[in-house]
């Protein structure tokens, strides 16, 4: 029976390691881990709380409050399906504070490049989509010289 003390040592080590494991686990495990699934439930709310930068299509009526003419032109023209932010960039900050944040206007010198981003000819595009070859159609003239961007059809 003199060997039974070895068993106690083994058992004591086992218990100690187990207690250490439980302590480490309670310290390291985030409180919301496992509430929904095998992940930190709080991270879902953290991602939800991130700020938005694009105001979205639903905010277009807020655009119309100040930019009434442009909004009406767009609503009747061929660009009616477009969101204002497609061309003008993210505007959530501008909607929240119209005076403090101004979205940049597409640069006048770059306007051909800007329009061609969508309207450059390519056989990969749907055939019905309006495309224009900049090497054949009024070379050197800004698109805006003839076309109004909000209602581009002449």
């Amino acid at each position: 029976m003199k060997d039974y003390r070895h068993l106690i040592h083994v058992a004591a080590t086992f218990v100690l390691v187990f207690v250490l494991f439980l302590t480490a686990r309670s310290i390291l495990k985030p409180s919301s881990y496992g509430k929904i699934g095998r992940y930190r439930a709080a991270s879902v709310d953290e991602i939800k709380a991130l700020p938005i930068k694009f105001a979205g299509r639903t905010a277009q009526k807020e655009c119309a409050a100040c930019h009434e003419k442009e909004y009406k032109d767009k609503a009747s023209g061929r660009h009616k399906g477009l969101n204002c932010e497609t061309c003008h960039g993210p505007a959530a900050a501008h909607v929240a504070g119209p005076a403090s944040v101004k979205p940049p206007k597409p640069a006048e010198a770059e306007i051909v490049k800007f329009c061609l981003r969508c309207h450059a000819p390519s056989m990969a595009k749907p055939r019905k989509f309006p495309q224009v070859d900049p090497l054949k159609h009024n070379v050197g003239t800004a698109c805006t010289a003839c076309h109004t961007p909000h209602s581009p059809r002449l």
Partner: protein
Amino acid sequence: MRGLQRRQFLKISTAALFGSLMTKLAAPLAWAEDFYREPPWKRKKPYWGFAVDIDKCIGCAKCVEACKIENNVPKEPFYFRTWVERYVLRKNGAVEVVCPNGGMDGYPDIEDEGGVAKAFFVPKLCNGCEHSPCVQVCPVGATYKTEDGVVLIDKDYCIGCRYCIQACPYGTRYFNPVTQTADKCSMCYHRITKGLATACVEVCPTGARIFGDLSDPNSALTKFREDNKTESLKVHMGTEPKLVYKGFDKEIR
């Protein structure tokens, strides 16, 4: 008389055995009701999905730009949550795929247009797999599928082991050099939970991208899936993507 008794005994014992076996069998059957046969959006609300109409995409890559702005994706041309590839299928069977800077810098001219069988643009993004390999391989539970069906990354919990980047069959994950964590399309979770559409859908000029709630029978997405014949990427992998394409081609990888 003895024979009859034996027969009776056998009858009763067989009936008893059969009865107990049936109750034993019925118990696991009741438990099996946890495994649903119908898709999750039949019982969970909302459940987000995505669709792409390849026939409408013009390759302007406004979506790529908007995604980078909305989600603070590094501007270098290696980091994308969404990107637009141009496929050129030659008559001789050759397939050319190009995607310079996600499509934001435009595409090179197609050479020898006479030899082209067909050409089209394919926007790519997170497929929102029902059985996502990236979630399965994460060793720390930093990536997960939310109750409304979106695969997200917990940036505070990610250890940056890049295992999920290897696991994604669609290559939609990248290593964010700023946060030093894995990063991916979050289906603009911060927008969709506020009732807005994703940034890429907001700016798409032709309506080639459709976002919506699969559990809503009247949503634009449900209607799109009902009205069109759609296909997903790499269905043979069994990941069950919630992203579907209209105008799919077998050469799309």
